[in-house]
Structure formats: structure tokens, C-alpha cells
């Protein structure tokens, strides 16, 4: 198991958000956290990344405990985080945004280069000298993903990648993410938009009020009519 989250409880100050979340992600899988706004999807991803450390529980990455490590260490160990509100460095150009995120890959891995991310996101190549703040929402989303890829992650945490984007752009993004999947990238994404994620996912977790309400494969989810009806047309 690549990532094993076990019974984590996370709070922002006195406000408790996660009440014992457990998630497993296997090598090469795409796993989706589905749920409405405010159920703890973002907090789950931030907990894994160490940005909002959980109070209790365990997070095992390739067998070793990472709960309590600072985010930069977790990133160096191979987990890449794509934040929901994009968080582009607005004064830095596209090229500079990518440059600050470069981390060398392991010796036997191909590794991401500028050329390779431009191949995946051709739109970015033409914008390489434009400042991040002057990009459209879709371009910023691509840049955020590309930037995280420059760190050669083994697992990509994508927080609501389709949020706030036009349908055409969402389709493009889904294609790019499935391309990443074909290349063997393991991903854990959070989504409100089930249409976007169902086609991509191997496994699904449905979150409600900081707890896991359902877990299983996409087929199991589609068969479970009650859960399906409750969550598919949010």
C-alpha cells in the first residue's frame, strides 16, 4: 500500500473537522473523495500533506509514519499537493513558477522536465513568460498541476481540480488527468463534481461531516442505488 491513512482526527483550533477518516491508496490507483462543500475533503488532503496536522491517528507513506512531519519533508518524500485555490505565485512567470518547484527524481525514474510538462499542457508553453497572476482560471489550474509535477511526486493530491472552471476546460483537464493516469501516476483527488471524477477513478470514498460514509469501487458505488442517488446529483 502506497498511502495508508488510519483514523485521523483533525481540527482547526477548536473546530473539529475530521472524525476518524481512514483511506487507502494503492500504487497506480486513482482514488476520489466525494462530498459536498465543508465535509472535510480539503482538510483530509491538507492533513496528509502536513499543512493541517491531525491530532491523532496515523498516516503511513510507503510503510513509514509521516504524521507530524513538516510539509516540505512530506513533499520531499514524494507526495505532491495541488491546492484547491491554485495558489499560483502571481508575480512569478509561468517558467519561474515551475522552476521553484523542481526537485530531482530518483536515479531510476524518468523524472519530469519543463519539456515534459509542456507536452502535457501545451497551452503553458506559449505562456511561459507570462506572470501567473495574468493567467485564466484554467491556465492557472494547469500550471498548479504542472508545478507540482516538477517535484516528481509518486502520489498527486488534487484538491477540487475542476472547481470554478468552464465545462470545456473541465473536459480538457479530465483528458490530461487521465493521461497522467495512463502514465502510471497515483492520484488522490477531492471533488464535488462526481461526473468529472467517476470516469477517472478506481476507488471512491464519500465523506460526510468529517467521516467516511461509503467506500468502494466505482462499480460498487453505481450499484448502491441509495448512496448513488444521495450523492451523484449534488
Amino acid at each position, binding site marked *: 500500500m502506497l498511502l495508508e491513512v488510519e483514523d485521523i482526527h483533525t481540527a482547526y483550533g477548536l473546530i473539529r473537522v475530521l472524525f476518524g477518516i481512514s483511506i487507502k491508496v494503492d500504487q497506480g490507483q486513482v482514488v476520489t473523495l466525494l462530498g459536498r462543500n465543508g465535509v472535510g475533503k480539503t482538510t483530509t488532503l491538507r492533513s496528509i500533506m502536513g499543512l493541517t496536522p491531525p491530532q491523532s491517528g496515523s498516516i503511513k507513506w510507503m510503510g513509514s509514519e509521516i504524521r507530524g512531519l513538516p510539509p516540505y519533508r512530506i*513533499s520531499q518524500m514524494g507526495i505532491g499537493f495541488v491546492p484547491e485555490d491554485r495558489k499560483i*505565485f502571481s508575480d*512569478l512567470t509561468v517558467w*519561474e513558477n515551475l522552476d521553484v518547484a523542481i*526537485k530531482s527524481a530518483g536515479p531510476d525514474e524518468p523524472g519530469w522536465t519543463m519539456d515534459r510538462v509542456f507536452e502535457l499542457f501545451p497551452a503553458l508553453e506559449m505562456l511561459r513568460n507570462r506572470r501567473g497572476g495574468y493567467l485564466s482560471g484554467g491556465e492557472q489550474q494547469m500550471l498548479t498541476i504542472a508545478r507540482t509535477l516538477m517535484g516528481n511526486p509518486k502520489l498527486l493530491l488534487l484538491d477540487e481540480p475542476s472547481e470554478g472552471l468552464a465545462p470545456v476546460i473541465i473536459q480538457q483537464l479530465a483528458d490530461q488527468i487521465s493521461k497522467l493516469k495512463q502514465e502510471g501516476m497515483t492520484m488522490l483527488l477531492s471533488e464535488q463534481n462526481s461526473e468529472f471524477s467517476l470516469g477517472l477513478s478506481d476507488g471512491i470514498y464519500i465523506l460526510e461531516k468529517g467521516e467516511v460514509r461509503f467506500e468502494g469501487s466505482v462499480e460498487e458505488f453505481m450499484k448502491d442505488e441509495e448512496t448513488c442517488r444521495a450523492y451523484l446529483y449534488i
Partner: protein
Amino acid sequence: MSFDLSFVVLQLLNGLTNAMFIFLIASGLSIIFGVLGVLNFAHGSLYMLGAYATYQCVSLFVDSPGQFWWAVIAASVAVALLGGIIERLLLRRLYHQEELNQLLLTYALVLVLGDLARFIWGVDQLSVSRPAVLRGAVEILGQYFPKYNVFILFLGPCVAFLFWFFMLRTRWGRMVRAAALDRETLGALGVNVDRLFTVVFMIGSWFGALGGALVAPVITIRPGMDVEIIINAFIVVVIGGLGSFWGTFLGALIVGPVYALGILVFPRLSMIFIYVIMVVVLMTRPWGLLGRPLQR
């Protein structure tokens, strides 16, 4: 009293020399605020320690050729290290607290470092002589202008250019800019932002100390120079825009000459011109000439 042109020109050059000193010092203040978000009142103290340490080193290296230059390097590096220690041990604990606590801490440092300097070097006025190669003066329009000032006039823009090059054309500089914009995101991308902050604080301290070291031959070193300079440095960054590098340069280029020429007109009220400029800037562009409005 008649103003002949050569006198005005010379006074302008003196003002510009002063501008370069203030720029060096204020740019350290500005980068620390821009990246760490901390208003470091103790920056003037680091400047003062830079001057005292230069005095100390000059007397230590008395027999070696180029003693002044070695002293400048040793003193500014030593103070930069002290800055690193201050950031690691004290300031780091206050990043997540309200700004008032940071101000109180840095103000406390002003008092502590001021007393420390008094304890080590006493209250007498000390002086450092100019390096041998830069003694004497050049003649400009029939007036004499110290060679050392000519050197400072060249050095200022060189430092500005080097710094600009570092920030825009090196990976470290890009990371510093990214950290200023969003430290959390940069950390999640695998950069040890804590270490980066320490380095930035050391660079900022180094600028302050370098200003103190280089100004040592043209002023008297004495207690109280720390508070004096911090006020001028704040005025410069407020006019230019806190956190804006070129704003600091521009602010210094305004304050230096205005002060120097103001002395010619109203010798006792020359600071008034500078305060008037600051007030006008604050009323029309509160974020400074080249700064930008705070985004929260």
C-alpha cells in the same frame, strides 16, 4: 548668502552619497519586511553594530594591507550571523502571533543591543579612518569632493544591480520571491521555508551591517546612531513602498538629495521637507511610490 552652482552641485553629490548609504540600510529593512512580514526595529541596531565591529576589526587588522576592507567584510558577516541567531532563537517564535508582539520584540532588541554596544565600546565617539587608496579628494567644478564618496556613489548602484540580478535571475532569488508571496505553498512544494527565512534575515542584516561598516569612515560612531538611522530608513521605505526593492532605491534617491539641498535653504528645518514628502505620499499613495496595496 549666494548659491553658486558648483556649491549646489557638490551638495547634491553629498546628498546622493548619503542616499546610497540609506539605500543599503533600508533595502535590508525592506526585504525582511517583504519576505518575512516583520518590521524589524532592531535593523538600526545591526547597522550600529556593523559600524562598531568595523572599528574593532580595523584595530585588530592594523598591520595587514587592506585592513579596512577586511574589517568591512568581517564585521558585516559577523553581524549577519548575529542576525541569523536572532531569527532562529527569537523572531521565529513570533511569526504566527500578532504584529504587535513582533514590534515589541524587535524594540526590546534595540534596547538590549544598544546597551550591549555601550557596555563593550563605551559612550565615547569613535572613528575609523578612510582606506589608504580612497584618501584625498577629486576636484569637481573647483570644489573638492572626497574620493571615498565617489566610491560610495559607484558602489550603491552596483549593489542594487547585483541584488536585482540575484532576485530575478537566480533560483534562490526566485524562491525568495515565491516565499514572499505564499510561504505555505512553497513549503508544500518541498522547499524548507524556515531555512530560507533565516537566510533572508541574514541577507537583510548583512545589508544593514554593510551600511554601518561603510559609513564608519565618514561619521562618528556613537550610541544613538541606531535610533537615528532607523527613522530615516523607515521614511525611505514608506516613501518608496515597503517591500519594494526599487521603491527603496527611489525613496533613498529622493530623501538623500532633498535633505542635502534643504540644509542650504533652511539649515535648521531640513528634515521638514522630507516629512512633507512622506505625508504627501502617505495621503496620495499610502502603499508608497512603487509599493502596492496590501492584499489580505
